[in-house]
């Protein structure tokens, strides 16, 4: 019996091992092109690109197809094969796509995941090709850092933001608060949350995430807002067990249990708080400007009801966003073609995603202070002017946030972000679900766990 099984299994194992090795083998065929040379006019290249808008996003998809047609007219030797998905990427499918050879040549990625992808060498080094991108030198160095490892570059940004205080203007009015003057400190947030939750009718003043690693993500934002940090300078030790970390948790604890302004339902994730905000049941949370678009598109809310203020405390804030990286197996021709496409579609004011005039005509929202891809240079100014000229949203609602955009330092996510977030989820959820939670003990335990994770990683 066992020999029969062995006879059946042996070729299967051999076949699967063969397939695995074949799949893992590199593809260096025909790599004769010099990396710093432009793409040869007679070189026919076809590239797959992630994050083509889904069919349900009618206007965005129409614009994408127009852009592809215009780009291919400019570069007749390049074919763009867009791959649609909504949302653009589920980070959890990234590894599966990579393992199954289904990852696009130019793939979409969140800032959160870029560091892990770079550390694992799962993206191509595009440094030698960057000369082909006309706009790359104009990219904000703070944003550029997301895709850099030392002097090497692995990707280009598409969208970026920094976190601020997202709030419900309608509830501010109802609670007697001035919707044009959002809270600027955590003490003011606490006061406003008390007044909003006092409206009753199941209305929550302030909400915080605490599940699926999102609690850790927002804890990081709050620690930055208090001037703290997540890791030591060398990245080898946790640095959140500090007065700043304690202040973040103490504030949450006070709002949750003393003021009762955070509602009873916890373990919230982003979709939960967006639903609450759109339903007019939530006053404030930490978020980015594009939350307004999500609330309007997915939950049929109105732009007029929302506004954004600076991150409370304004000592620092978390930067986020998304961009594109290149498949580690992509040929030099594909990388060159991809860079030309990204330059055209993502980074040139007045074109592609930055064509605000067309977006306005197509009935899409224009005017949110996002993305801010460029530093305060000529390209950045041109982009802002074009956006302002076509704005069709109540941009004044986002002015308090935009006014401080350049004064509040943006910080990137820490290394090994997901592992740290998983540990800190537990801390945030403890404070929000247990009245007797001991903050010192929680932070001390979390630090030990985080140090252990960092030690193993290094």
């Amino acid at each position, binding site marked *: 019996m066992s020999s029969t099984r062995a006879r*059946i*299994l042996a070729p*299967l*194992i051999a076949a*699967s*091992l063969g397939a*695995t*090795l074949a799949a*893992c*083998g*590199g593809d260096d065929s025909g790599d004769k092109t010099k990396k710093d040379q432009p793409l040869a006019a007679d070189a026919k290249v076809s590239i797959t690109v992630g994050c083509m808008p889904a069919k349900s996003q009618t206007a965005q998809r129409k614009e994408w197809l127009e852009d592809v047609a215009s780009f291919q007219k400019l570069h007749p030797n390049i074919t763009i094969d867009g791959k649609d998905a909504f949302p653009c990427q589920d*980070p*959890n499918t990234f*590894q599966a796509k*990579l*393992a199954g050879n289904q990852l696009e040549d130019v793939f979409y990625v969140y800032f959160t995941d870029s560091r*892990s*992808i770079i550390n*694992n*060498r*799962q993206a191509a080094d595009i440094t030698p090709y960057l000369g082909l991108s006309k706009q790359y030198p104009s990219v904000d160095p703070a944003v550029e850092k997301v895709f850099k490892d030392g002097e090497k570059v692995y990707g280009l940004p598409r969208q970026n933001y920094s976190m601020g205080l997202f709030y419900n203007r309608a509830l501010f009015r109802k609670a007697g608060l001035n919707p044009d003057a959002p809270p600027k400190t955590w003490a003011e947030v606490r006061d406003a949350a008390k007044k909003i939750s006092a409206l009753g009718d*199941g209305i929550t003043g302030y909400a915080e995430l*605490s*599940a*699926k*690693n*999102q*609690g850790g993500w927002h804890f990081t934002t709050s620690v930055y807002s208090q001037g703290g940090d997540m890791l030591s300078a060398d990245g080898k030790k946790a640095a959140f067990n500090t007065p700043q970390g304690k202040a973040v948790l103490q504030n949450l604890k006070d709002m949750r249990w003393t003021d009762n302004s955070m*509602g*009873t*339902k*916890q*373990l919230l*994730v982003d979709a939960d708080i967006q639903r609450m905000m759109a339903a007019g049941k939530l006053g404030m949370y930490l978020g980015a400007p594009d939350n307004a678009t999500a609330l309007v598109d997915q939950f049929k809310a109105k732009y007029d009801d929302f506004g954004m203020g600076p991150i409370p405390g304004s000592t620092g804030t978390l930067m986020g966003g998304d961009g594109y990286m290149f498949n*580690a*197996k992509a040929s030099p021709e594909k990388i060159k073609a991809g860079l030309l496409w990204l330059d055209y579609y993502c980074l040139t004011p007045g074109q592609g995603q930055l064509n605000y005039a067309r977006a306005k005509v197509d009935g899409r929202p224009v005017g949110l202070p996002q993305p801010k891809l460029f530093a305060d240079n000529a390209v950045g100014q041109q982009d802002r002017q074009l956006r302002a000229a076509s704005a069709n949203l109540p941009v004044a609602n986002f002015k308090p946030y935009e006014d401080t955009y350049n004064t509040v330092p943006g910080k990137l996510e820490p290394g090994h972000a*997901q*592992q740290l977030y*998983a*540990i800190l*989820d*537990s801390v945030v*959820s*403890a404070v*929000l*679900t*247990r009245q007797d939670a001991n903050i010192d003990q929680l932070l001390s335990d979390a630090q*030990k*766990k985080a140090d*252990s*994770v960092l030690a*193993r990683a290094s």
Partner: protein
Amino acid sequence: MTTAPIAARLRRATTARMSPRRRRGVQRNLTAYGFLCGALICFAFFSWYPIVREVLLSFQKTNFVGAPTWVGLDNFTTVVEDPVFNDAWLNTAAFTLLALVVGYAVPFVIAIVLNELRHARAYLRFVVYLPVMLPPAAAVLLFKWFYDPGPGLFNQILHAAQLPGLSWLDSTDTALISLVLVSTWMNLGSGTLIYLAALQTIPGELYEAAELDGAGIFRRIRHITIPQTRLILLVMLLLQIIATMQVFIEPFLLTGGGPEDSTVTVAYLMYQYAFNFNNFGGGGALGLMLMLVLMVFSAIYLRVSREEAR
């Protein structure tokens, strides 16, 4: 060209070098082997191949770009040293135990009650089976609302009965049992139907004789129902252990492992390693450990069922 000559040639080619007796056996069963191929290919691709890959992964470090490197037991060391590792196993064991107490007994009792009913049996069987027809994600999200400490159904019922509301998923004391209740509700129908089928195979004369001897319902259950359904109870016990130890969807959708890691299970931690921490080796190592534990239960079951057959 028709298929008949091809089949005949295939048959001749396959059986050319065999002994006459074996040849006759193969010729007689060739069609059956053909059908078997489909199942074998499916199992090979969707069960055996992933198992082999998973075992290999647990001893490798891979980024799915370059060739994987063998790292010995490093992945196992990593996951064992993870501070949540012990919690995950304890939570899984607690979930399994609670699911056995609640999820194993409840369907059996319901099956007995349904079996005793004279009216509306078909309707009630349908009602009991209904949750199985709901997609698991929909069922779990339905409970998310039931468990809402504010306007949720369960607390509304408690308040109507002048009782204090519970935190359900938001408390380390009640989160795990809340997940057990969801799991039990979702899987109640299948278990009940299997028990019901087993109950209906028990000869009615046994109950009649017991009734004539003056046995009440509990004595009839103890001395007839349970001994007569012992084998199916054992099978269900094993299946229940195997299924509940792999619990994933409930913590994934309802609690995200919280509060305070109180609902992190081994399968959930495996998911975290593979898909969130970008460490497939660690996920593979946890998967292999879980598989070995489940194999122990399978071996116990096989031994018990062999003794039963004797």
